[in-house]
């Protein structure tokens, strides 16, 4: 077979030589064509194909889009480029060709990362969404998750805080788990499980999101929440280029929205107007919120160099970012760099790629208690007294927030390092072996000092210094074989099989000392503190192994009928001894209907119609954690007093019931998808899915006796998510000077906890969303985890309004007890993303928006602030008196508000300076970006986009929201 192929190609080669030779001989009058190929925006198209029509003569354009070709005078040249409409022009000595984009083909020709390989988008059978770098979020990005906010149907990214050091919560198609992580697995350049933030936004070429189980099952026990596949410019392309690029911006941000509280004058009017005798006027006029805020100035600079030739490539990048927070003292700076290179050998059959990247983050967390104090403190209290000392009026939760902010030092840093090597080798034609090894290191250092003069813990403990260092390391090896073969031109088969090994090791230690005689050392000399307590020194270490075998078969018949099947077998050390290995299968089919003969009549407007159907099982092993199935003694057990020596000693005690059956959570998902392209202008996808998670992990109460510990982790429950997603991309208008395109996505998800109990384990409803710590709310809960409801379910009495006495009218039973009922969920039902981009000559304008709808937010801040007992000693919202509320705070749906919102995330106006080539520059672009320009919402608090992560308090705004900034940035891109 092999010889046969070689034989025929040899014959073909000779025939070609002959034909070319003959034709050159006959057509003696050749001309030399010098030309340039660009797109509509005059951007050169490197690598475009030029072919003399009716012949085999041709060439390709160079990096500047230029080409030079000899051909007979009068011949036609066919100029083609992937994603563009092919043009035929008459040969002339100087040619300038502008190609039109082919909207449909551009989408379909895209190569998509599918895990352990790539596939043309047109051949996909599963639900995979792709976002290329142009479509990622613009403006300031401090956490890579933000890049995807509003960009992908079904992927919700919630940024609960304006703190530059905070991350975002990512959920794909609703969460699949109650107790485990709901974050998708991130795969960076083929390395699974990498911290998303090891990648800088400027390095990202494209992001592919494996949404359904038939796509994600190749990642087995880590695939249940979907997979985000990130392709960076580190694994450099094969397009020859040499360039230096600079990207930078300067940004200015201010708090977008405040609580409207009484000013000192309003407070005084109230006191005078109501003849309140025992009110203390401290004589100041302080807007406590403003005292904490500032205009934040941030800047970022990125330099990227690369050099790619036919056989090798090198690229390097360095980024420095300094992000100020809009709350004083909070900021984050980041230095990151990466270097990677590749080299081909053995006639391009062998490719070796190596790379390293590193990131150093330094940030200053703030004491978040300041927000509640700023809301509580009486506006007549001055920040400092006559002696310049911070005022302190005593009382609970009324400490001076400026003191809290300033008299504490928090210095955190995180170091991330990733090193990898990859080898790809073509053993015989079509059969490739790939192996990659990687090492990831991620450490977090925390340094804290609370000086002796700081209120509360500083004074009580006479100063406290703390250090902590924790890290984790991932050692990974992946090795797989792929075989591509085509039979009879119509049967395309791709087979892949591999093995992977992952070892995760984490460890750390820390120390605390109190009782300092001087504050000079801060956290730098803990030994200077004299007060040592149990637990002040600690260390820990743990380890987990994951071993996997996986395979995939992809069969494509005539480009119309496609079939994919995958299988992964995961063994994890975390699993109980009765369930060490888990098997995750999937299968999917696709049918390109539009290519059928019977669809010929629609081909004028229907460019593409493809149906996909897939089913698969994925797992989530995150909820188990290490050592959870074993009978172990915790060495951090309690102390006991040993009377014989008069000293305290450590005891070791068992801390969990053993469960040898512990295993992963299993998610089976059905997906039905339709891809379509219309009028060469619009393409889109419609997806329907049904996900059922079984073996949900939950910590159950168990009878004691006989159990050693009153709770036990077990796989019991079921959870369902089902939904619809629609994605539309449109090329609305395109003329020589003007282009206009738009993208839109909308998704709907419905979640339900079907089952939490079985015969052995029962959970009748766990109360969560603790309101403890709010006045009058001790021991009260706002949420419940219960069968029949989604996660994040608010649960409490309904309120019919405020009666004439200013009391909440609560639904009560015949005994006068409030009737608790379901009040909605913190999870959005509908997510929308919408954006448009325009270009006019050298100007470009784009905006993007996103919105979340149907979720509830408990405005616990409002619930506590509309409290008559706060006056006169504390502050209240300025419309408190008109609210009619005259009784103590009470939890009910009165404060469970509709959290739906729609936000203008960013708008960018750019200008590309023309004709820069004269100065030896390829491109100079300047732009202005505005972020968070407006938000439309009915929510009465400061911002409805609040943290929805976890089960403890998703969707509860409780004096904990770091205000979100509105930011304007000026940026510059220069390419040499």
């Amino acid at each position: 077979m092999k010889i046969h192929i070689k034989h025929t190609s040899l014959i073909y080669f000779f025939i070609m030589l002959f034909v070319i030779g003959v034709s050159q001989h006959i057509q003696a009058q050749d001309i030399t064509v010098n030309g340039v190929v660009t797109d509509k925006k005059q951007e050169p198209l490197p690598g475009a194909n030029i072919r003399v029509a009716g012949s085999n003569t041709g060439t390709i354009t160079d990096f500047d889009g230029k080409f030079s070709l000899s051909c007979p005078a009068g011949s036609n040249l066919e100029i083609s480029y992937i994603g563009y409409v092919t043009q035929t022009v008459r040969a002339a000595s100087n040619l300038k060709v502008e190609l039109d984009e082919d909207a449909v083909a551009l989408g379909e020709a895209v190569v998509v990362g599918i895990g352990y390989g790539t596939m043309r988008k047109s051949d996909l059978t599963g639900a995979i969404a792709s976002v290329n770098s142009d479509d990622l979020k613009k403006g300031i990005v401090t956490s890579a998750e933000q890049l995807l906010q509003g960009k992908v149907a079904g992927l919700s990214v919630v940024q609960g805080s304006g703190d530059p050091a905070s991350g975002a919560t990512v959920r794909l198609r609703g969460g699949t788990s109650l107790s485990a992580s709901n974050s998708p697995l991130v795969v960076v350049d083929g390395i699974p499980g990498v911290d998303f933030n090891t990648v800088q936004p400027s390095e990202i070429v494209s992001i592919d999101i494996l949404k359904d189980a038939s796509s994600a099952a190749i990642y087995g026990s880590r695939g249940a929440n979907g997979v985000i596949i990130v392709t960076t410019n580190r694994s450099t392309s094969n397009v020859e280029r040499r360039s230096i690029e600079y990207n930078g911006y300067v940004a200015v941000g201010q708090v977008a929205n405040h609580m409207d509280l009484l000013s000192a004058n309003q407070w005084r009017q109230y006191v005078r107007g109501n003849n309140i005798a025992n009110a203390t006027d401290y004589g100041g006029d302080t807007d406590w919120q403003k005292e904490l805020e500032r205009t934040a100035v941030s800047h970022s600079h990125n330099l990227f160099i690369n050099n790619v030739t036919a056989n090798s490539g090198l690229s390097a990048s360095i980024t420095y970012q300094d992000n100020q927070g809009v709350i004083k003292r909070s900021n984050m700076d980041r230095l990151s760099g990466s270097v990677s290179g590749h080299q081909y050998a053995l006639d391009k059959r062998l490719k070796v790629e190596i790379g390293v990247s590193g990131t150093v983050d330094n940030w200053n967390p703030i004491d978040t208690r300041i927000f509640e104090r700023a809301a509580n403190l009486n506006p007549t209290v001055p920040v400092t007294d006559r002696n310049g000392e911070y005022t302190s009026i005593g009382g609970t939760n009324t400490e001076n927030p400026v003191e809290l902010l300033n008299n504490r030092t928090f210095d955190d840093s995180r170091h991330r390092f990733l090193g990898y090597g990859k080898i790809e080798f073509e053993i015989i034609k079509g059969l490739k072996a790939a192996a990659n090894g990687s090492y990831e290191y991620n450490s977090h250092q925390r340094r804290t000092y609370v000086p002796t003069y700081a209120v509360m813990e500083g004074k009580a403990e006479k100063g406290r210094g703390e250090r902590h260092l924790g890290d984790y390391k991932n050692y990974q090896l992946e090795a797989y074989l792929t075989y591509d073969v085509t039979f009879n031109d119509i049967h395309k088969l791709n087979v892949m099989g591999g093995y992977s090994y992952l070892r995760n090791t984490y460890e750390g230690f820390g120390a605390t000392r109190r009782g300092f005689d001087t504050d000079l050392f801060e956290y730098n000399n803990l030994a200077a503190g004299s007060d040592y307590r149990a637990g002040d020194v600690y260390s820990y270490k743990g380890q987990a192994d994951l071993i996997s075998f996986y395979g995939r078969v992809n069969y494509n018949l005539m480009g119309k009928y496609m079939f994919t099947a995958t299988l992964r077998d995961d063994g994890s050390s975390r699993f109980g001894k009765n369930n060490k290995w888990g098997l995750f299968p999937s299968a999917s089919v696709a049918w390109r209907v539009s290519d059928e003969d019977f669809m010929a009549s629609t081909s004028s407007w229907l460019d593409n119609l493809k149906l996909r159907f897939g089913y698969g099982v994925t797992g989530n092993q995150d909820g188990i954690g290490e050592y959870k199935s074993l009978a172990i003694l915790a060495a951090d057990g309690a102390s006991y007093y040993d009377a014989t020596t008069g000293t305290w000693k450590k005891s070791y005690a068992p801390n969990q019931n053993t469960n040898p059956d512990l295993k992963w959570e299993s998610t089976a998902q059905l997906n039905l998808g339709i891809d379509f392209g219309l009028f060469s202008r619009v393409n889109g996808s419609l997806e329907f899915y049904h996900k059922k998670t079984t073996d949900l992990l939950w910590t159950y109460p168990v009878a004691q006796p006989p159990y050693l510990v009153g709770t036990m982790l077990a796989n019991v429950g079921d959870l369902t998510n089902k939904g619809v997603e629609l994605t539309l991309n449109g090329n609305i208008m395109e003329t020589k000077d003007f282009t206009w395109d738009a993208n839109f996505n909308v998704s709907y998800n419905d979640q339900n906890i079907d089952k939490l109990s079985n015969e052995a384990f029962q959970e009748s409803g766990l109360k969560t969303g603790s309101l403890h710590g709010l006045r009058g709310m001790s021991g009260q809960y706002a949420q419940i985890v219960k069968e029949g409801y989604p996660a994040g379910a608010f649960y409490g009495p309904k309120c019919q309004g405020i009666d004439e006495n200013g009391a909440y009218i609560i639904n009560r039973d015949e005994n006068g007890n409030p009737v608790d009922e379901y009040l909605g969920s913190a999870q959005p039902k509908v997510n929308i993303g919408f954006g448009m981009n325009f270009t006019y000559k050298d100007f470009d304008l784009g905006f993007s928006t996103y919105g979340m709808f149907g979720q509830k937010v408990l405005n616990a801040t409002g619930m506590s602030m509309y409290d008559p007992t706060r006056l006169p000693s504390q502050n209240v919202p300025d419309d408190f008196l008109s609210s009619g509320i005259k009784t103590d705070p009470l939890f009910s749906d009165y404060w469970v508000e509709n959290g739906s919102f729609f936000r203008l995330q960013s708008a960018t106006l750019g200008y590309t300076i023309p004709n820069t080539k004269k100065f030896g520059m390829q491109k100079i672009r300047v732009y202005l970006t505005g972020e968070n320009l407006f938000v439309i919402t009915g929510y009465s608090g400061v911002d409805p986009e609040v943290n929805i992560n976890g089960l403890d308090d998703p969707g509860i705004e409780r004096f904990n929201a770091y205000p979100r900034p509105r930011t304007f940035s000026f940026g510059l891109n220069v390419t040499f």
Partner: protein
Amino acid sequence: MKTKIFSTIIASSLLFGACTDLDEKLYDKVPMDDYGQTSSEIQTIVGGAYATLRGFSDSDQGGTNCYPTCEYVFFLDECVSDEACIPTRGTDWYDGGRYQQAQSHTWDANNVMILGTWKYSFQGIANVNSIIYQVNKSGLTDHDKEVVNAELRGIRAYYYLLLLDQFGDVPIVTDFEQVGLPEKSSRKEVFQFVESELKQIMDNLPTGIIYARFTQNVANSLLARLYLNAEVYVGTPRWQDCLDACDKISGYVLETDYFESFKTANEKSREIIFSIPYDHKEGTVGNYLHSMTFHYNQKYAFSPTGTYQWCGNGISAQPGLYSSFDENDIRRKSLLIGEQINLATGSVVMMDNGNPLIYTEEIENYTNALQNEGARLYKYEVLADEQWERDHDWVVIRYAEILMMKAEANFRLGFQANAIPYVNEIRSRAGLPAVDTVNEEVLDNEWKHEFVFEGLRRTTNIRFGTFFEPWWEKGATPAYRSVYPIPQTVLDLNPALKQNPNY
């Protein structure tokens, strides 16, 4: 070249393929079955049994505190008795009515304080059973095992004595490896179990006085408590057995200063027979009763800079308790009453509502009390730089109780003359004149005043029958409430358990 690379790939796959060992490697924890081979290892396990006496905070039900010093074991026993209460103050301390239920003797099986009380003992028992299991598997000689196990069984018997008193019929579980849901044993069987365990281990227990260790003196004290209440527990009085057990206790004295046993360094007290040691620097938790009783602004009266710990303005004395003390009774200082002086300014501490902080004995309405109503629990020493977790040890048994048991047992046996000297010894230290007769009322008063806020009052109220009579704002209490109901969540998890009668 080709074969070389190919074989390298295969070889490396095999190399890693060999690593299919998925056993978990432990670094900072130890496997239960391999531990306890050396005597120092044994000690770290046995010490854990004593550590359980401090109780724990359970994560279920959104956090159930099972502390004998505070929430909820102490709270429950105190609030159902006639000496303390946790009034609701505005929205504070309502907490679903759990404290009002205790005060009005209308508690039900869902009251979390009852769950905390149940869990305190059964968590301790489960831990002790696991420790005994490990001791038995260790390399110790059989005799050494018996000696080590004697203390462990003693601690377990202490828990069962609490359960016997609080719940009556409870399951007896002694085997760590037992699986399956246990059924209840009758109160009589539990009584016999406690009695026989304490007797069986007696000879293997340490003798003499070892602070905070389960010695023969402790075992005899618990036997005396058991017999003192035998009539309540099993219907048959055992007064003479109580006396005999008391007579075996030796080496302790009444401290001259009544408050010596309640100082921060109370481990020096020669009166304490058994205690639960605390030291916040050693990470002990649960010992924060002071923060549960004093007013929010009390800190200015304890510390000139106001750095005293946050206080929650909760548990108070019931009205009538303070005035029941003779004004010369030094034990009355166990209650804090009157105006509180700001140490920095010398004037009265002001509350946030603008009124002066003056504690009153009276509580007009326990369902909506004023912030300053109710005398406060002031028995253990208060230091200005107190931490949230305090350092005094929690007194479980002290010698004065032995004297009172002797007095009561003699009186019940009709030996009134024998009883009088014991009562007078107690009264004399309290600064009170001697009595020449002893009757139920005298004894009850002495129990009440001597052991105020020590968690003994409920048992005493039941033994004297006063528990069932109306007091303050509570009506008569039916007899079945002399034990608590089995907590509902416990019943739900173990269908083999039957609820106590009438609940």
